[in-house]
């Protein structure tokens, strides 16, 4: 404990990167050294204010831009004010209706991905791998071939990522369906953790997992933010997932605003994905998560479907009461925004987990 530098610890504390051992060393320094304790207090206040300051600057720009859509008014007579209110109201109504439209409020029943009656043009991207043959090559096989081989115990792979620093993660429903046991493993540490499924949504194809191992404390801070916004056509995106035992990076762009057969809960991307990618987060260029990979179109090459972040949000809202006050990745500060792509990925690697399901 003596080899810790208290200023290094302070910096890590202020940027949310302390592990448990470091935290207790830090608290120790703080208790022993009055001068240091004062510096800590002041630094905490300053960093909080800096965050608020940045947020304010960002919001100011957003509002200034938004204000441009308000028509320049004439000298205020009563009529003019109502006229402007009318225009502002129409803009707001228009905005509301477009929002309602894009979240499928006005559309008919959405396509259900995992229905067995559904056309087989759909391919779930959870990958069935024989436990006995731990061979890497198997992962490259097409799903049909894997399904036809009969094994006594099979496991299935997918990808998941943290929703809260305390131990909640999200993946696809079809990855964990009928699982006897679910575990997660990280690319960087190789330590497996047991998880339980605390929430399932078959229609949206989402499942929320919770780490049950007592040896786990937290994820060490979540560097990304999940953002509920409409993906723009042609915007560049990337994904990190486990179509094989190590993390694989893929990039592409948003090719359509809706999913298979007009499914409004999803959007379409041009990344080629493979079994095991189910549940992979989809990042925009700022490292914000805007969705998670769900499936691909077997007939159309390089066409994959992503569950919109909006539906992750609604899944969280449906969690049992005990999780209501958890700080989720939705209101987490994005810490990788200005990093280069390689740096973003390097920070994210340790946060993306492979899901191993024993059926």
């Amino acid at each position, binding site marked *: 404990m003596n080899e810790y530098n208290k200023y290094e610890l302070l910096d890590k504390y202020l940027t949310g990167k302390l592990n448990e051992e470091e935290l207790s060393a830090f608290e120790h320094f703080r208790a022993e050294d009055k001068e240091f304790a004062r*510096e800590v207090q002041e630094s905490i206040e300053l960093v909080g204010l800096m965050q608020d300051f940045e947020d304010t600057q960002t919001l100011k720009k957003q509002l200034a831009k938004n204000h441009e859509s308000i028509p320049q008014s004439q000298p205020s007579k009563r009529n003019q004010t109502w006229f402007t*209110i009318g225009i502002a109201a129409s803009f707001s109504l228009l905005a509301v209706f477009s*929002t309602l439209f894009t979240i499928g409020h006005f559309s008919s029943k959405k396509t259900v991905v995992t229905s067995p009656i559904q056309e087989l043009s759909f391919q779930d991207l959870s990958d069935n791998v024989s436990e006995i043959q731990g061979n890497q090559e198997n992962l490259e096989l097409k799903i049909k071939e894997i399904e036809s081989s009969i094994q006594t115990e099979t496991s299935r792979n997918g990808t998941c990522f943290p929703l809260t620093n305390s131990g909640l993660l999200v993946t696809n429903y079809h990855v964990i369906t009928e699982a006897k046991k679910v575990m997660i493993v990280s690319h960087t540490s190789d330590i497996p953790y047991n998880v339980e499924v605390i929430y399932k949504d078959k229609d949206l194809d989402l499942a929320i997992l919770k780490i049950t191992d007592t040896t786990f404390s937290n994820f060490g801070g979540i560097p990304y933010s999940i953002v509920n916004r409409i993906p723009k056509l042609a915007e560049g995106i990337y994904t990190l997932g486990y179509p094989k035992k190590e993390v694989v990076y893929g990039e592409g762009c948003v090719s359509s605003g809706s999913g298979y057969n007009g499914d409004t809960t999803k959007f379409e991307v041009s990344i080629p994905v493979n079994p095991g990618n189910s549940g992979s987060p989809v990042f925009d260029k700022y490292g914000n998560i805007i969705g998670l990979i769900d499936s691909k179109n077997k007939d159309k090459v390089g066409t994959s479907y992503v569950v919109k972040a909006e539906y992750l949000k609604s899944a969280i809202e449906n969690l049992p009461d005990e999780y209501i006050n958890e700080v989720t990745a939705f209101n987490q500060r994005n810490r990788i925004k200005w990093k280069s792509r390689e740096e973003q990925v390097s920070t994210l690697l340790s946060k993306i987990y492979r899901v191993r399901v024993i059926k």
Partner: protein
Amino acid sequence: MIEARSQNTESELIQSIVLGDDKAINILYLEYYPVIRHFIEKNNGDESSAKDIYQDAFIILIRNIKRGTFKGDSTVRTYLYSISRRLWLKELNKRNSRQSKIRDIHEFLSTDDYNENAWEDRDKKIKKLGVALQGLGEPCGTILLDFYVNGLSMESIKSKMGYTNAGNAKNQKYKCMQRLRKIFFKQ
């Protein structure tokens, strides 16, 4: 039409804002501007003042929504009006030496009803920090925000600012932080 918006939709918008939805912020913004503009213009202000006051008040609203201190005990409209009213009163008093009178067009929260300090103190401090950062100048402003807010590593900061090694960048950051502490806490 605005009056017809149900209380329900407004709390949904607020919920969305808490969860990071920028679109909901824009919708709310457009909705209440006319009321505040009307108020300012009725009280010796012009459109440009209305825009400034409204944006200041709106930023405070969003800040409090995100922190959870605006819980919807009052409507957004009343809240925005109360803040705008207070900001405008202060502005008017700055312009004339004698106490200005306000002609109200809406009910507002008295300082007993809501803790004015909840937003005013915080707002003042944030503005004070902005001034302090400006006083520090560059490269300190960028280094501090990049490290503590934007989460850049010392390595990235070193590349971005052109230092020869990450150790130099770290030293520079340390010095900047010490200077900031001094400027901010001196009184």
